[in-house]
């Protein structure tokens, strides 16, 4: 299972890449493999303010709809239109083209409360 070391992870299987005060969020390789066949992504509206743990996007497979939670608090400043057009990007490139939304974080220290790759890898093993 691929868990890039430069990312942080939530126990609900989202990953976060922090660049300055901008956190890019997607779902982990493990999560996409569990969901299989992502066929629909519902993106949050721009400018929405979210608290860590809020259901923020929805990823759907043939089988089920799964909430994607904001791993950190802040404001949604960008969403990925490509995953709306081609949801399978979440499966094929979960850490790259399959990113889902970006949050301008209210407190970047929160990101470091998330798991590092080693801790996440042990959670899913």
């Amino acid at each position, binding site marked *: 299972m691929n868990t890039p070391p430069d990312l942080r992870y939530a126990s609900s299987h989202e990953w976060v890449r922090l660049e300055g005060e901008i956190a890019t969020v997607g779902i982990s390789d493990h999560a996409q493999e569990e969901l*299989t*066949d992502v*066929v*629909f992504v*519902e993106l949050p509206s721009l400018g929405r303010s979210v608290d860590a743990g809020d259901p923020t996007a*929805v990823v*759907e*497979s*043939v*089988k089920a*709809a799964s909430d994607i939670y904001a791993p950190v608090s802040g404001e949604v400043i960008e969403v990925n239109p490509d995953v709306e057009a081609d949801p399978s990007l979440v499966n094929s490139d979960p850490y790259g083209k399959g990113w889902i939304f970006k949050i301008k974080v209210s407190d970047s220290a929160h990101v470091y409360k998330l798991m590092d790759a080693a801790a996440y890898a042990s959670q899913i093993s």
Partner: protein
Amino acid sequence: MTSEIKSSPLESAHVGLGAKLISFAGWNMPVQYTSIMDEHGAVRSACGIFDISHMGQFIVSGPAALAWLNGLLTNNIAKLGIGQGQYTLMLNEQGGVIDDMIAYRSGADEFFLVVNASMIEEDFFWMAARQPEGVILRNESELWAGMAIQGPHSCEVFSRCFPSEELPPRNGISRTASGSIVCRTGYTGEDGFEFFSPAAEGISYWEKFIEAGSKPCGLGARDSLRLEMCYPLNGNDLLPNRSPIEAGLGFFCDLDKGDFIGRDVLVAQKTGGPAVKLAAIRYLEKGAPPRAHYPVLAADGTLLGELASGVLSPSLMTGIGMAYLPADFAKLGTKLSIEVRGKRFPAEVVKKPFYVKPSSPDSSSSQS
């Protein structure tokens, strides 16, 4: 009713294949092995195999069996020759559906019924409470492992596994030399057969069919395949307060064969036209996959009901579903919308089934 979770005799094979298991109708069953899309596609284009050991098998026999079953079931069982089967329904006194099943005539005075897993106990109690002299009713559900081998290549798979035997004709039933039961039926819209072996021999047949070219498929693909064909799922699309006339299954109800439980209600509905109908609904554009219980609204936003079943069709790549709607709104071409998390996706009532096989000039298989 027991709350204990039952295991299929094939469970260890599923675990070995890395299947995801879920609880379904009181059974721990595989929902998927690799992906629902792939498994669905394998059945439409090649061959898939499903564990159906959870389904129930009843044997009804005796000189009075035929007449008795004809009073309990909607289709005319007297039309079956030995070795033939038919889709049929068992109704309550109000004409609502208790269960749908396939009834096969396995002998002159012997019938083999395959019923839904969730209804084995209820069906059996209903039948046993009405069982007359001269009829033997046996629940053999625990004795049999079951698997459905489905898809355009299923005949070749059978020939590879049983080179000296032949499949029964469509809807037919036969026995293999080794005592397993083969039925030329399924619930996917593809050619195929259902195979019942003594439970202990199940895994060896399962492996044999896979080796011969069938891909293991779970309940997820089984659901999307049956819904593309508008085949109803009991508990979702068939309900104790809905009749087969309302469900659009009048073809399987012989109102002229004599009396059966629920017949009066069906006659009245057929004469006056049912007030509600199970409509096939298809998205008009891309949208969130429709699922059971999502609200169905009229074009003007009036709430009409909820989806009985819904899925993103892997063959059509669009949302499909069925819902009981007032008859006026169940007409072909009626514009509707499906509400998903507060958003409305435009849809319309379409002809059943959703999926029509690309022209198949000859569905008979070549012997390999």
